[in-house]
């Protein structure tokens, strides 16, 4: 059965002023980070574990790639994207219980979520640099 074109199709990306409102921007960012993790995050995992399984030479190459400047930049982006999807996912789980479902709740949890992303990213890279140096 083909979709009926006089019915609305969800979700709409063109009809909202995404650039002037923070809540819908954070909402679509949850999807974008999720898709990025599903495409690129899984490729990192497949390559890293696969290289280890294929032996010392392949694993040394993988570790060298991830510790190169471009590799560190990719890993930094990965931590931000992962922590965003994780913290905003917890926000969604809170909404699923019926709590914080209000304009004020959306605003308040948005600040808590962005603070968590910043805190987790800083924590991961401070610990990472201490371990590596």
């Amino acid at each position, binding site marked *: *059965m*083909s*979709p009926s074109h006089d019915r609305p*199709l*969800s*979700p709409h990306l063109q009809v909202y002023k995404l650039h002037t409102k923070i809540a819908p921007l954070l909402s679509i960012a949850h*999807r974008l980070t*999720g*898709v990025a*993790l*599903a495409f690129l995050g*899984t490729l990192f*995992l*497949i390559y890293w*574990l*696969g290289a*280890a*399984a294929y*032996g*010392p030479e392949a*694993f*040394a190459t993988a*570790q060298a790639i991830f*510790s190169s400047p471009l590799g560190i930049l990719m*890993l930094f982006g990965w*931590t931000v994207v*992962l922590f965003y999807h*994780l913290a905003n*996912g*917890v926000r*969604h*789980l809170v909404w*699923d219980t019926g709590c914080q479902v209000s304009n004020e709740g959306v605003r308040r949890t948005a600040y808590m979520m962005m603070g968590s992303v910043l805190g987790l990213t800083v924590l*991961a890279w401070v*610990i*990472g640099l201490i*371990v*590596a140096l």
Partner: protein
Amino acid sequence: MSNNSRSMQSALGRARGLGAAKADAVGHWSAQRITAVALVPLALWFVFAGVIGNIDSDHAAFRAWIAQPINATLMMLFIFTSFHHGALGMIVVLEDYVHAPAAKHITIMLAKMAAAAGGLFCAISVLTLALGG
């Protein structure tokens, strides 16, 4: 009643399967939430213990780490839960944005196959490292 040949069917029977998600929407919804809850500790463990804990690891050190039963178990749980969660998320995104029925069903099928193959490869890699000779 418009269709006399189906008059023996209950109202619920006629309505079932006609919604936007067609089948098992509640199962999909709850599976997405259950995997999300499980991934909160598993993803944090993966970043801080798995990745940061192995920043400097050579092949022997990484193998010794993943050969510990607790690490192998958590890594397998992380693999299955994250690939399952990723496939569920990609299915929702494809259902929302790919409107042509054939393209939608084919891309959803490919997303499921890719998640199964990627997850299996990661799991086999962990088993090779942890159990291989």
